[in-house]
């Protein structure tokens, strides 16, 4: 019986055509995994940065999983949405943080920021955006932490 803690935060996003952004996220696991506590999906607040290009959410993620098998490691999906001045929401990009999310770190405590690519659904002047997301991680052999920083 193994347990996995995912602790981290979605830091923010940048590089989208608009700055008023929020993020929907969710964690997907295989069927061998049981959620013991914490929310496995959610939505951040809308951040409209006055200064700078990065919309900061600093949204905490804190989950506790138990598993009976090793298959189907948790994956996190992120959707970056834009909310316009009329309150309408529009999907700007989405991405999946797959296997490197749970990359094995034997015993060492490391803190990493990794980038993931968010494929943009929005076509702007027929050009596609490729978005990236930075994941910050604190891993400690069974206890893992994920710090997510979306910078697109």
């Amino acid at each position: 019986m193994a347990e996995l803690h995912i602790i981290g935060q979605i830091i923010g996003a940048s590089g989208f055509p608009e700055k008023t952004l929020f993020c929907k996220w969710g964690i997907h696991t295989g069927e061998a995994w049981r959620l013991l506590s914490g929310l496995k999906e959610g939505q951040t607040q809308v951040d409209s940065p006055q200064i700078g290009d990065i919309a900061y959410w600093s949204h905490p993620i804190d989950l506790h999983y138990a598993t009976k098998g090793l298959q189907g490691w948790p994956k996190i999906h992120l959707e970056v949405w834009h909310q316009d001045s009329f309150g309408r929401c529009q999907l700007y990009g989405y991405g999946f943080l797959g296997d490197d999310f749970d990359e094995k770190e034997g015993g060492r405590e490391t803190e990493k920021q990794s980038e993931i690519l968010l494929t943009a659904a929005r076509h702007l002047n027929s050009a596609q955006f490729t978005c990236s997301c930075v994941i910050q991680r604190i891993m400690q052999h069974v206890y893992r932490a994920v710090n997510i920083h979306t910078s697109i």
Partner: protein
Amino acid sequence: MEAPEDGEEDEREALKRHLRAERQKRKKRLLEQSSIQKSRDADDVKDVTSIQQYSADEGPSEKADDSVVLSKSRTGSQKGLTSRTQHTHHLDDFVKRRLEEKLKAARSKGESLQDKEASLEFPSRLHSLRDRDTVTRFDREADADRAGRRDSPPPLSTRVRFREAARQVGKGLPTAEEAFNFFTLNFDPDPPDVIETSSRRRQKQRKTTDEDEEHEDVDEDIQEENETQSEEAPLVQTQEDLFVIDQSPQDFLEIRKAEYVGYQKLLQLQSELLFTPSFRTVPTSIKLPENMKPRYLEDEGLYVGERPPVSLTNENILENRILKMEEGKKWFGDDGRIIALPNPIKESSTRPPLFHMEEALDPALQTVYRKAVKSKYANLYIAGAADPEGDYQLDVDVSGLIFSHHPLFSREHILGARLAQLYDQYLTRQRNNLTGHLTDKLNGLRNALRNMLESHSGLNPTQALQQRISEYNLEVRNTRHLRDSEQEKDRTLLKNIVKVWKEIKALREFQKFTNTPYKLYLRRENVDRVSDEQDYEDEILAEVVELEAETEEEYQNKLAEYKKRLEEWKLCRKKQKAKKKKQKKKKKGQAQDDTEGEDEEQDVSESEGPTDEPPPKPEPPERPDLGSIEQWVREKALRIRRKPGEAILIPELSASANITASELCPRAEKARREDVARRSLFTKILYNDKEVSRTDSRSLNTDFRVHFGQIFNLKIVNCPQSISLQVFEEIGSSCSLLAQVFLPVPEPSVVTGSVPLEEFEFSSNQRVMFDHEGVGSDVPLSFEADGSNKQSLLTSGKVSCCVSWGIGDDDVPLAPPISQQPGGVHSGKGHLDAVSYIGASGLYDMKKIGEWAKQSRLDPNDPKNASIMQLLKVASSGEVTAPEYFRLEHLQEEFNFVTDEELEKSGRFRLLKLRNQEVAEFRNYKFIPALEREVTDTVFQEYEKRLKEGEVIDTKEHLDSHRALVAKYLQKIRESVINRFLLAKHHYLLSDLVTEEEIPTIGILGINLFKLAEPKRPLKPQRKERKKVTAQNLSDGDIKLLVNIIRAYDIPVRRLQSNKPGQTSHSALQGSIGLPDQIQVRPFVEVSFQRTVLQTATADGPNPCWNEELQLPFSAPNGDYSTASLQSVKDEVFINIFDEVVHETVMNDKNRGKSIQTHIEKRWLGSVKIPFSTIYSQSKIEGTFKVNTPAVLLGYSKEKSHFTNSGFDILRSLSEGTFITLFITVDPQLVPGESVREKFDTQEDERLLQASERFERDAAQRYPDRPCITTVIDLSGKTVFITRYIRPLSPPKELLDEFPNNPLEATPLVARFVSLIPSLPDQVSLSATCDLWSTCDQFLTLLAGDEEEHAVLLCNYFLSLGKKAWLIIGTAIPEGPTAYVLTLEQNLYLIWNPSSGQFYGQYDTFCPLQAVGCLVNADNVWFNIQQYTSPMRVSFDITKANLWKPFFSRTFSHPGLSSIQPEELVYRRTDRAAAAELQDRIERILKEKIMEWRPRQPTRWNRYCTTTLKQFLPKLELIRGQDVAEGHRHELQSLLGDYRISGFPLNLVFSEIRPIIEAVYSTGIHSVQASNVEFALAVYVHPYPNNVMSVWIYLASLVLT
């Protein structure tokens, strides 16, 4: 700009300028002269070399000078001009003109000079160029030449002359002479030549005088000639010299006319040498091989590409040329034309057109320059390409080596090695246990066969069955054979081991020393003889039976065959006989027709040729001797098996024997050992046949094992082709190669740390012989005594090592990708997994795997095949079919390490989950054990019990079945509400997450600075804002409850003990006034909270002032300080006022005399209780509260103060009672829970909701401290407009029947009824911060609710009684925001506290209502927009629009909202029997409790007193606790006589038993210490309709005086 100057200076300036100009003029002239000279020079260069030289000498230097001066003067004049023109005004025209002229002159001069300057640069360059030339060319005479040249002045360049000439041409038409010069003159100045010639002349002169040096000179001259030629010296210039020089070398030269060869002749000559192909078309026949016709593919319908256009002539020439070459025909295709590729040129461009308009280019099409990148993998594995980035690493671990034979082995060593080998073999066999498996298999097969035969014994065996049986039989036979052979092997192995061991022993005996440490033990394992024998016999029997069956079958087969053969044979014989007969007949009958017959005969003989010779008569098969089978089987068993009952022998090899020391050995052995000690070994590691590393040299031990234990990290760039180890033996300084071991290149997946060491065998065929004990290598030797059975052993051994790919820092294997591996990857793994062998892809193809399994006849019992068998069993139950579904996580089950059940069973996970779900029992659970075993099952017991007994009602806790039901119902509502709010609670605001300290602004800073300067006033303390603390960072002991008790008013005073009832009252009253020194009362306050009790000092008098602060610790349930948890704290703060009574008793002791004992007794006077939830939500409570005093206080009386004589009768009781001023708060200040921010379902009109929102928002903006409610949430969670709650509802009939004549009298009774319904704040009941309003019928069913429900019910009753009543939404102490009821009676407004049933006049000072926010009735809501909120200062005239803002007005009229209240309330009748039962139970419980609280003293009950008190209680209920009379006290006094009585009745609302007990406890009546105290307790429960109960408890303590 220059400053203005005086005239003198100006003049001086002008003078200077003039002088300068003059000088310039002079120079110009001079220059002109020189230029003329130059031109002259140019004219006659030939003759006047000296002049030229002069000019060349003078001119440039002059010029150089000039140029410097000139440039200076020019700038000066210009500057002067500008300054002049600007500053001086008095300059006349004359000066101006002159200046202009000068300027002009200077300009023109400048121009010409510029040209010259430009030209001047060249000579120097030319010069240097020439200089360099000489250095390179004339190495030998460089010195002399250079010296000469340095002497000569820098010459004027020819270029200058040329330019000069050109300029002259430019000026106008040149003269004839000039023109001639221009074209003919070779502009080569060659001044050195001039010098040389002059020097030559000198040389010549020298020559004439000195003849000896002639030859040298000639040489020199030739050189010089060359030189001049090379420099293309002008012919004319050197002609003279030539004539002079050529005189002497004429002998060597032959001058001839140039030969001319005619064109035709030339052609002829050339044609002999060159081949010119003709450009005529070559006939096709030549181009093709002989006898072949040209073939046109195009005509045959094949596509032939278009050929590139080549002109026919060229093609012909090419063809002709090619044909002349050897094998020229191979260049031609079948069609006779030159083979050509199709035309590569495309007609249209395939590239997208790029229009390089500015910015018009699509960004997607923009070309991006990228630097060429060297592919990492492309050339990494090309041999020799050293890529520093290629970080691939091979780790070669050379652990050690063991010799299985070495030349230096002694005989004992050989035997020892053999023994060790055999033992190893034994161990492996033992581990594999093949015999066991095969035996099991055999048994299994036999069983299966038997079962099959048994089950089908009665039936006729079908074809298939027979087939199967025979298959089984075959299988059994095969397995048995296998088993037998394995058993035999085991047996022989064991025998061999024993034999070798015996040999070793013999050898040791013989040679009298020991060389090897081996020692063999044979462990006996005894077996049960009987069962063993039984097994043995069974086995033999079974085998015999099988063999018999087999032989029988075989015999039958043979017999059948024999019969068949016999049949054939007989047939044959018959035929032959017939034939013979026939022949005979023929011979007899047709002798004449011989030839024909012969022919026929021949035919016959031909056709029957084979049968001609009679086949041998088949032998009938021998009947097998069944008796001998058993014999044979037994023999075999004896041979290969342990005898029955014989102990099992288990050999154990150990290396524990002592090796004889060298000193004790014979000489030969000693020599051997010395030889061994001399030797050492090392290995070289060869990578791609290159030595890359070598191990340290290790000496050879006596056990012939060498340990290296070295790991070599090979950083490789080349593709690994081979890795090998070379074992070297070193003797002294010489070393010899023993053997070479090739290691396999590992697969990329083989990474360091994951592979075990492997052993690789090696051997060498070197022949080594020794003269000592060492046996040598490849030398025959024998262990037999007679020297027979010789064998020769070769040096051999095993290297233990492993090769793997290294791992980088980031855990990346430093192995090349698989595709990079060259073909032929050798796997170093000896053991192959069956599944991996087939490959992962094979797993999906069940058919394939099934076939494969069938083909290879997998043994299902072999553990190696278990996985496959399992898979097959799963997959091929029935038919082998490919699944029609897709498994997302295939083999999930196989990879699970726990089952679902185990996961479910885990207590820890369950606990975590339950806590996360916020299940009531685990909601505030702090720490969950990290280990499974620390989670006890008891944790879940309560929860499981609740789940199980969900519906069972526990009446014991509640004393009343109805209440128990209600409690359950309430619980359910609570659950549902909590679930509803659970999600809403997770919606956080920014302030919930971010605690941001406010940045001090300039203003604040300024104020603070200003404050620093302020004088300190310690007597005027400033109020400081307390810091609010969020709940999450709190722990036990952090929170304290501060209770500041300030003062009290109108505390009852003691009444003197007197037996005269009539007097005492008066005398006491007078005494208090008349006798100030007499102790009236000594009150103190005791505060108890969560069983902590603190008390103030004792004060004097009925109006004491304590001004004391008490700190009570607070601890939250389960140590959880979350908002939700704190809200649900049900604890109450009890503030009790006691009177301290001191009794002095005089004790008479015979020995010591008199002593005075002082007893301090406290007597309860009254209490105030404030729930913690109120304190928590209010954060502070401040004010004067009415003390809840009992209706009767035995031994005390009220000091009556002035009576306010108002018209209305009811007001009489106003301002009566005791009051206490308190200040209560929590330290540190807790953040009260926010109300739930969520929109709820609603059935209200959208417009109404918007209006109400607007109304509330406006109110909050204008008067933030005034509560305003327009919409509330009902129990089902829907938003409801508040006016819907108000509707006249009739109170229970019983209440009205009490006063049939005077409905006014019924009013207090109704209020009392309402107040008797227990009060339970929503926050406590629902543990969520939300205000739920239940309707009156719900309220009466639940029998619990907070102030709003009480107020609504009371208001509705009043309305039905025909009063004018409103709901007041306001704030009161201690409740905070609450609801009261306002009634209008005879022009007087009365404010009713619905929870206590008390009413206050509008101008009552002690009215708990502090602020009025709005009024509500069935039609409208009015918001208070007056200046004040205090009820005393508020006008309740709602008709005035400037005082009260109505919700529904003309602009937004009342839409006719129907009430949500029921039309009529249904009341249950009073159940007196139940009340009586309850009364008994409460009495019993309380008595038990009081006894329990007095564990040390005996508790005596005064029955007489109790019965008396019991009679009083109904009366008290009747008059609703109003101060009754001294009457019954006197009655009591008279009854009891000598007792000092203190006691009081308590009136309580009945909800549960626990609050009753608490209330009794808080009075402290049990704490009377006197030894002779007696108690009296009476309980009376008065039932009201609908199960509303009023509980009266009369408590008294009696002390006999």
